[in-house]
């Protein structure tokens, strides 16, 4: 016989549940103050424009669950993007598959460098990846001399227009759900499958929960950590392609600087910097929440500087709430145990 808890009480214990509520409340609020917000066209745009953020946030989620952190992914994405752009524009390779598949192994290779350094030096990953962020980025700027790339082959431009659903608005202009949103959804599903149904995924949770216990249980720590940093590398490569598609140009300085948005989205979604917790649903909603807030600020016509203030405030609030939860929990325990 086993004790079953009320499924509703389980739901209300979940971070994702509250995140979902906040998302709904915020969206309703925005929709009331500006009816444009809830229009499908705006929502599709929102999803499309946040694909880069959405994909790398899933990678960051996996790293955070394992108890690590990666801030170098922007540099990894930039390098992967630049090499890809350089090759397809210089040799004029009119094949979109090359553009998609080229940045991924580059991302994996650079991620592997992070993974190896984290495992062998045992220095905190935030230090390692800040260092590799600077090293990777510096090297790229030196080699590229900061030149922009924009003369892409036609297939590169056509792909960006692909839509999964096409609709027409009242002014007769076509809009739709972008292929990139589809890519984001597929990556989310793959990440979810890995975390939930593959032993490597459970080991990622395990090492994030208690590294020493994982070692004693005989889990391969090296392989798990290497996987984690290669995974965010691979997703950075893929996201780099998406980013290049969305902007249709490659600037070496376009992506670096967005690290905090991504980490904020993952943490907002319930991942902890102490490792061991976080979910795909949370990370997706974290990105959506940030997207909705930014979109709301634009619709409210607030100056761009305010966006940064609001972002900062959100991170502080989200982090305080999870710290508060921990504190309440610790208190409960100390009363019942101590």
């Amino acid at each position: 016989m086993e004790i079953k808890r009320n499924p509703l009480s389980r739901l209300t214990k979940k971070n994702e549940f509250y995140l979902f509520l906040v998302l709904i409340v915020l969206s309703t609020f925005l929709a009331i103050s500006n009816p444009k917000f809830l229009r499908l066209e705006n929502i599709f745009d929102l999803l499309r424009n946040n694909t880069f953020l959405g994909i790398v946030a899933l990678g960051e989620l996996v790293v955070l669950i394992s108890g690590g952190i990666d801030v170098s992914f922007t540099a990894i994405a930039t390098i992967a993007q630049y090499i890809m752009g350089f090759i397809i524009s210089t040799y004029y390779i009119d094949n979109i598959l090359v553009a998609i598949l080229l940045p991924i192994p580059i991302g994996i290779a650079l991620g592997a460098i992070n993974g190896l350094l984290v495992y062998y030096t045992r220095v905190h990953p935030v230090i390692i990846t800040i260092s590799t962020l600077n090293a990777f980025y510096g090297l790229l700027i030196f080699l590229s001399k900061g030149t922009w790339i924009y003369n892409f082959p036609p297939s590169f431009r056509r792909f960006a227009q692909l839509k999964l659903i096409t609709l027409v608005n009242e002014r007769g202009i076509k809009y739709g759900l972008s292929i990139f949103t589809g890519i984001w959804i597929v990556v989310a599903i793959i990440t979810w499958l890995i975390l939930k149904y593959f032993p490597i995924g459970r080991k990622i949770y395990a090492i994030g929960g208690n590294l020493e216990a994982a070692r004693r249980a005989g889990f391969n720590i090296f392989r798990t950590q290497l996987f984690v940093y290669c995974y965010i590398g691979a997703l950075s490569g893929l996201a780099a392609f998406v980013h290049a598609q969305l902007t249709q140009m490659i600037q070496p300085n376009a992506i670096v600087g967005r690290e905090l948005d991504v980490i904020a989205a993952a943490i907002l979604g319930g991942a902890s910097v102490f490792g061991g917790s976080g979910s795909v649903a949370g990370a997706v909603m974290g990105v959506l929440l940030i997207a909705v807030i930014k979109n709301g600020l634009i619709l409210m016509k607030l100056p761009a500087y305010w966006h940064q203030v609001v972002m900062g405030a959100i991170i502080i609030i989200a982090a305080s709430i999870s710290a508060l939860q921990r504190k309440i929990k610790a208190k409960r325990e100390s009363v019942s145990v101590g």
Partner: protein
Amino acid sequence: MIEISAFLDLRNISKYYSGVIALDKVDFRVEEGEIHGLVGENGSGKSTLVKIITGVVQPEEGAIIEIKGERVHNLTPFEAFKRGIHVVHQDLSLFPNLSVAENIVSHLYLEKKNSFINWAKVRKQAHEVLRKLDLDMDLDAIVGDLRIADQQLVAICRAIASDAKMLILDEPTSSLTWREVERLFHFINSLKKRGISVIFISHRLSEVLEISDKVTVLRNGVNVGTFSKEELDENRLVSLMTGKSIIFQKKMKSVENREVILKIENLTRKGQYENINFSLYKGEILGIIGPRGSGRTELATSLFGLNPPDSGKIFFEGKEVKIKNNMEAVKLGIAYVPENRILQGLVLDHSIENNIAITNLGKISNKYGLIDKDLKRSLSIEALKEFRIKAQDVELAVKTLSGGNQQKVVLAKWILTSPKILILDSPTNGIDVGAKESIHNLIKELAEKGMSIILISDEESEVLYNCSRIIVMKEGKILGEYNPESLSEKSLRKIIQQVGENGDQEKSFEQIN
């Protein structure tokens, strides 16, 4: 005699660490389905023996290791694990973020054939294990949300799930309440019936005697002997462990000069303790005994300003005071040595001198208010002598010391502030007999010099032989005040256990028999 029932048979086990003898020709034998107590002071070779049994270190040449009658050369951790030898470490080594079910069967992730996780199977297998052991737990509960006692059972279930034939339990009762200890013992006995051998390691000798069939005593790396439990009592065990003949402990006389230094009136903090009244006299040792959750620690932290009470009054030397934070408490002359020295009492990675300096910055500053390194060093060197701390040098990290010596560093750092009131929360928890005695002697010396001491403990003998008055707490209330001279260990235990036995803590988890 045909020796077929031995699960583990070790003969002639020696181990040297850079010339120092950790184990010297030790024989050790555990039968199938036997509960075998293993006791010894720190440094007696217990942990080395466990490491050899689990294959973590290799013994010197000439050693014979037999598991189930089969000679094993080169026992590796993996080999030991495969043959069913499992350790439940004091820290339990669980994954606090994962569910009960997943923790129990996490070994499945190691098997190559499980390339895709079948959650129904995970739950089913975990459920099987719980059913086999007559345990009823919520499989989906997150382990970190469980109480320590339940976490411990999860850790044991995990070992059973991966086919443990012998469990080594390292200090399993150090953070359990009495009821939980009882439940654990019941559980261990049910394992025994299944033919599982248990090595039970603990500093709590009464518990070792209660649960074990046989007890092996190690002293300075030598097996002093293996005894059946009928041959032993606590005093005999102590003398075997320490090699000293037994000193009959004397109870303390109550203090003659009843000068009140601290008076508490109707102190209440909701959900923790209520209507607490007592006085503390100058130069006395007042014992507060009660199980975990009785409010004793919460009360102590309130007196140190860390956990402000909701209502009630505190009088210090006759004047009413409000102790709003720990700085005010220190200013008044109150010192608090917390229960958990590792988390709350020490900065483990730092040196002994830095740890002592933390509370004594005033003493080691020069006239510009900067720290004088020579003063800092000499203060710590004096402390080593005064508190009989065994350490090579004051610059060594505290974590390199044994538990008993670590605890003495915590005591030193507070006693050097010359407090008027010293609150000690379970100061000898997890410390071996020898170190325990020297801490008790130290406390008595301090009281004689006029310091007032509140000694919080959950061991009857500790308060009985070291305090001049005893207050019993239970469920946030004071049950009564007692004179140790009118009590025995048994009668004190009875008083503590009589009320509220069927506490409401057991809701989340029940054992079915």
